[in-house]
């Protein structure tokens, strides 16, 4: 691992040591974040998988009902009876913060709670197959909304997990080793300087002694 391009001074080393400490703490926190996100993500994915299987099979059933209905009614009559819905289904949007990811929370807001209100047509000219079709779709509504919620959450969380994973890896395999190497390099350099100045002093002392008293310490 490459050593950073820094001056080998004591001050720089203290600074790097502080940075290393921060990097280690950040690494630990990000790792915890990743693990927790992953746990919740897997849970959501499992739920989503079940919901999707359910929604897809129910929608297929709905379509069968509609096909039955269109068999006994004319296409025009069928479409016109479905066209004018009495109420608008809305969703109340809130958001939840999961490990710094904003995931949406949807809850259905229906125009009315009256069971009979779900049919947008009068019963005089329509077949009961159409009632079945609309009813089954109406019952599927909560699942459909929940599916949207979990799927969007999965999408957002997958992106965040990927980002967090990259950051954890870069800290673990690049930043922290680099700091460690650089600190080690500076420590060695400082020691080396220390030794060289010590020998220089000893040498100077020898020379001074020899000059002043005519003897040298080194032969004792």
């Amino acid at each position, binding site marked *: 691992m490459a050593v950073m391009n820094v001056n080998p001074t004591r001050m720089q080393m203290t600074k790097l040591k502080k940075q290393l400490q921060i990097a280690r703490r950040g690494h630990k926190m990000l790792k915890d974040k990743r693990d927790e996100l992953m746990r919740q993500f897997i849970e959501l994915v499992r739920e989503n998988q079940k919901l999707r299987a359910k929604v897809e099979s129910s929608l297929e059933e709905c379509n069968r009902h509609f096909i039955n209905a269109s068999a006994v009614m004319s296409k025009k009559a069928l479409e016109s009876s479905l066209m004018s819905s009495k109420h608008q289904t809305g969703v109340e949007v809130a958001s939840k913060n999961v490990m710094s990811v904003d995931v949406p929370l949807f809850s259905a807001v229906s125009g009315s709670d009256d069971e009979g209100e779900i049919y947008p047509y009068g019963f005089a000219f329509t077949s009961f197959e159409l009632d079945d079709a609309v009813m089954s779709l109406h019952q599927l509504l909560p699942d459909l909304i929940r599916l949207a919620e979990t799927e969007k959450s999965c999408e957002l969380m997958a992106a965040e*997990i990927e980002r967090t994973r990259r950051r954890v890896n870069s800290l673990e395999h690049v930043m922290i080793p680099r700091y460690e190497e650089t600190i080690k390099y500076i420590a060695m350099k400082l020691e080396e300087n220390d030794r060289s100045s010590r020998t220089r002093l000893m040498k100077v002392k020898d020379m001074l002694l020899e000059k002043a008293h005519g003897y040298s310490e080194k032969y004792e």
Partner: protein
Amino acid sequence: MVKNIAVIGDSESIKGFGAVGMDMYLCDDPQESGNLLKRIADSEDYAIIYMTEGLFALCAKERTRFAERTIPAVIPIPSAAGGTGIGQKRLSQFVEQAVGSDILFGN
């Protein structure tokens, strides 16, 4: 904040959704689906946009813009012709993106 639900698809597949109070956007021309999605999503009236699988696959480029936003959620649903498994595939893509390999579905 109350928002609506939109459904994009061919008339055969989505005719029932209007009856349960969603806004239907008929799209019989697949080429138009990307523009339609953009228009609907940018209007910011909708929290959820369901799309039939065929059209969903066609506007991958348009969808990336909304991938990072909390809403709208663009969700594929099977069309009248039957499901193509895009929903499951999408889910395993998420798992692969997050984990690094597909550990849940194993394909």
